[in-house]
């Protein structure tokens, strides 16, 4: 286990995955990148695996609704949203905690004035 990346060590939890992927698929249906769950200010960045899973689930859902779905234009739209989600999720994960900490610190300092 110690050889695995930290995020890969967590036990696979089907219920959690289903809830998250369901929410991300809803975002895709609204034409939004599936980069986070929840809404501001309580949004949580989605992980790479959940983003990929949502793309696959959305693909299956659309094919079930319409067997003709899957044209190059349909897939191009989907891939763009997935690419954006991956980029945003990476930045949210890498820089988000530090930015929130800076904002909280500034808020505290202003409160002292």
């Amino acid at each position: 286990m110690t050889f695995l990346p930290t995020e890969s060590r967590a036990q696979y939890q089907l219920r959690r995955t289903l809830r998250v992927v369901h929410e991300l698929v809803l975002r895709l249906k609204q034409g939004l990148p599936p980069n986070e769950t929840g809404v501001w200010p309580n949004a949580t960045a989605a992980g790479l695996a959940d983003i990929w899973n949502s793309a696959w689930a959305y693909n299956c859902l659309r094919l079930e609704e319409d067997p003709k779905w899957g044209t190059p234009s349909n897939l191009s739209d989907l891939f763009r949203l997935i690419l954006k989600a991956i980029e945003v999720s990476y930045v949210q994960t890498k820089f988000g905690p530090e930015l929130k900490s800076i904002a909280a610190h500034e808020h505290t300092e202003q409160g002292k004035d």
Partner: protein
Amino acid sequence: MSTLSKERIEARLSEPGAKRLVITPILSPKQLGDISVDLRIGNQFIVFRLHMGELLNPFALTDTQLRGLQERRVVRFGQKFVLHPGQMALGCTFEYLQIPSDLEGQVEGRSSWARVGLQVATATCIEPGFSGVVTLELANVGPMPLDLFPGVRVAQIVLRDVEPAVKEAYAGRRKYFRPIGPQFSRLTRDEDAKPFTRGES
């Protein structure tokens, strides 16, 4: 037509259903001002190839030819894009926006950046129903090269009510559909420009 205050912006960001305003991600609460939301710069840029010094008549070119005059550059987060004095480049917001049918947005630069020579946006109206990242027309009008770091706040969007709400959605009827990076100009698709641009004497 009234401008949305911070309180109303926050309410619309968390409103369920079609009236929800989406600006994702908001990495820091600092981005919400009293009447605006700060926007960060993304990591894709389109620059002109400077060695091609021909006069530019976009209506005499095809989409492909027009794109050939420019090139797309991607900069890693943590690295910089240098905008030289007099240089113009297209960038985009890092945030993905979805504007509901009863709001419109105006994208403007931040004054702190303007004071060091950066102009951020000139075609600033974001229509109701728009979905995607916003292309920014960046220009350095100062005397020094400017380092632009993806992720830094360079612009802001001011939101206003649209009354009555627009019935026909933006999606699918405009030239720029759900972009995730800066978009090349599609002036050549302006059919109504043809009578004026044939060049007959």
